């Protein structure tokens, strides 16, 4: 693939450094790392824009301990057929590769809304301007009311499938706000997996930090997410969370990390107290600042800042 394709994909619309927290497997501690890293960077005097793009299960606000309010609806295009203008020529039905438009006998085409991807190909195909722009809400963008850290989180409306649209809208909203309000660093808490929501979340990142756990599952999925980042030409680093759990295979993590020519920047110990901290909705680092866990995050923050200055 030509280099300029990657350049076009990764060309940032803003200058602010962007760090994405990802990991492949669910439950490795992405949100814990994103929130505690944000707190650690904050304690070093930086203004952070934290963005939750896990629109299927947005929980960053819960772990951060802030209440959010909706600020914008995410809307998607859907076609509205203007019956007076429609000549029933079938062109829109043929153009719709998602098979969301269908025509029974010689009647006016009908829309099966769940299948519509909002691509607008039907509008382009209609020779009679018989398709008007309709819309439906597929999600909501929320903003935290906390002054210390600004959190923007996207939320997919349950029963809607088009979560990528919500991710993109959440990201665009945050990018604009980051420039307008002069934030120093943008931290993105991505969804698990390697699908299109993750691709959209990783886009523009100067650095993707993959959070893994030293289990066969964590290692397998770490390899996948590093493959994805390599394919998108996004630089990576790795954090081993729950590094000291019984039966851990840290060597396995190091091996995968080495294969992808990246490095482990921190090992975070497992602490059962984290369960309660998360339940209380209070970032761990704040409550237990003297622990190994919290010190690990201060070190990551320093490493991140060092790299940003180097840029």
């Amino acid at each position, binding site marked *: 693939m030509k280099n300029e394709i990657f350049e076009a994909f990764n060309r940032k619309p803003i200058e602010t450094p962007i760090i994405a927290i990802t990991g492949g497997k669910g439950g490795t501690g992405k949100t814990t790392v994103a929130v505690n890293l944000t707190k650690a960077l904050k304690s070093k005097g930086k203004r952070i824009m934290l963005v939750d793009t896990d629109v299927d299960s947005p929980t960053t606000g819960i772990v951060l301990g802030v209440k959010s309010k909706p600020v914008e609806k995410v809307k998607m295009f859907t076609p509205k057929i203007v019956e007076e203008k429609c000549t029933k020529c079938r062109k829109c039905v043929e153009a719709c590769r998602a098979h969301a438009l269908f025509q029974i006998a010689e009647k006016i085409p009908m829309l099966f809304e769940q299948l519509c991807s909002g691509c607008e190909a039907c509008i382009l195909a209609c020779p009679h301007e018989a398709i008007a722009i309709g819309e439906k809400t597929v999600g909501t963008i929320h903003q935290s009311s906390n002054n210390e850290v600004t959190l923007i989180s996207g939320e997919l409306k349950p029963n809607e499938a088009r979560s990528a649209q919500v991710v993109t809208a959440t990201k665009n909203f945050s990018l604009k706000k980051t420039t307008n309000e002069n934030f120093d660093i943008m931290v993105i808490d991505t969804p698990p*997996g390697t699908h299109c929501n993750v691709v959209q979340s990783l886009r523009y990142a100067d650095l993707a930090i993959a959070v893994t756990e030293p289990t066969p599952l964590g290692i397998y*999925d770490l390899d996948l997410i590093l493959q994805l980042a390599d394919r998108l030409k996004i630089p990576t680093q790795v954090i081993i969370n729950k590094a000291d759990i019984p039966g851990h295979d840290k060597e396995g993590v190091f091996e995968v990390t080495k294969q992808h020519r990246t490095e482990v920047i921190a090992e975070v110990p497992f602490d059962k107290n984290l369960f309660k901290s998360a339940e209380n909705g209070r970032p761990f680092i704040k409550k237990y600042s003297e622990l190994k866990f919290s010190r690990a995050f201060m070190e990551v923050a320093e490493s991140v800042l060092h790299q940003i200055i180097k840029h």
Partner: protein
Amino acid sequence: MKELIIVSGKGGAGKSSTTASLSVLLNKSGTKITAVDSDVDAPNLSIVLGTIITNYSEIKASDKASIDYSKCINCAKCIPACKAEAIFDSKGEVPTIIPFLCEGCGACTIVCPTDAISINKVVNGRIGIAKTPYGFPIVSGQLDMGEANSGHIVTAVKSKGRKIAEESDSDLILVDGPPGIGCPVIASMTGADSALVVTEPTQAATSSLDRILSVLEHFRIPANIVINRYDLNPEYTQHMEHLIKTKWKKPILEKIPFDENMLLSLSKRVPITEYEPNCKASQALQSLSNKILKVIL
């Protein structure tokens, strides 16, 4: 033949570990099992079941646009037609497609005056089939890196799973689902007779539980709940139990305690119920398996 899907909303709640133990226990009790991993982003079930899948076949379930530059007159009409913003003007010369962003909708082909753009099916994943060391088959899917349409891969994996289940005369298909509530989760749920929702006692998991239950309700799939690692936060577990009974009105089939054997068995790639059959988590899983036999089968 019944189909049970294991989901959670939030990732890392214990879907794959629970599915692996249940499949082995139910299989031992005489129920013929086919295991399906539909978490095509992070397929982990075969690892927990100690199975290495070598036999993969490619799936072409993604559409991508490609430009024939011998026909392209560089009118750039395709660029604004693409709502996914997947076409850019490369050095002001020719339109170029960013494949990671292209959804294959074909809007560009409609506006192109010289028919220079075509939509083609490309390989975006693979399906593997293997026999587990426990005697039953597993079907697992894998999305290719940077490819879209994981929902289509899920659908392909599930239909393969059903075919294998029919061929092997299975009584039950156990589907290990993806995290979240979006497109791959909805694709995984389609056709399931009932769902087992694995959760844990945290506020984050509760919020995800609320979302997954509303999706299951929408698709009219009956849900049963398992609270994993319940003893790590007994007070919050109580609060959750109350919510599950009063707000969501769903049965809690079992509560599984945190058990270090879970981590040790995982490192050996053996389900905990095989690794340490008498430990407290295994006992809870055995009881869960018995209840599934009664409630679902």
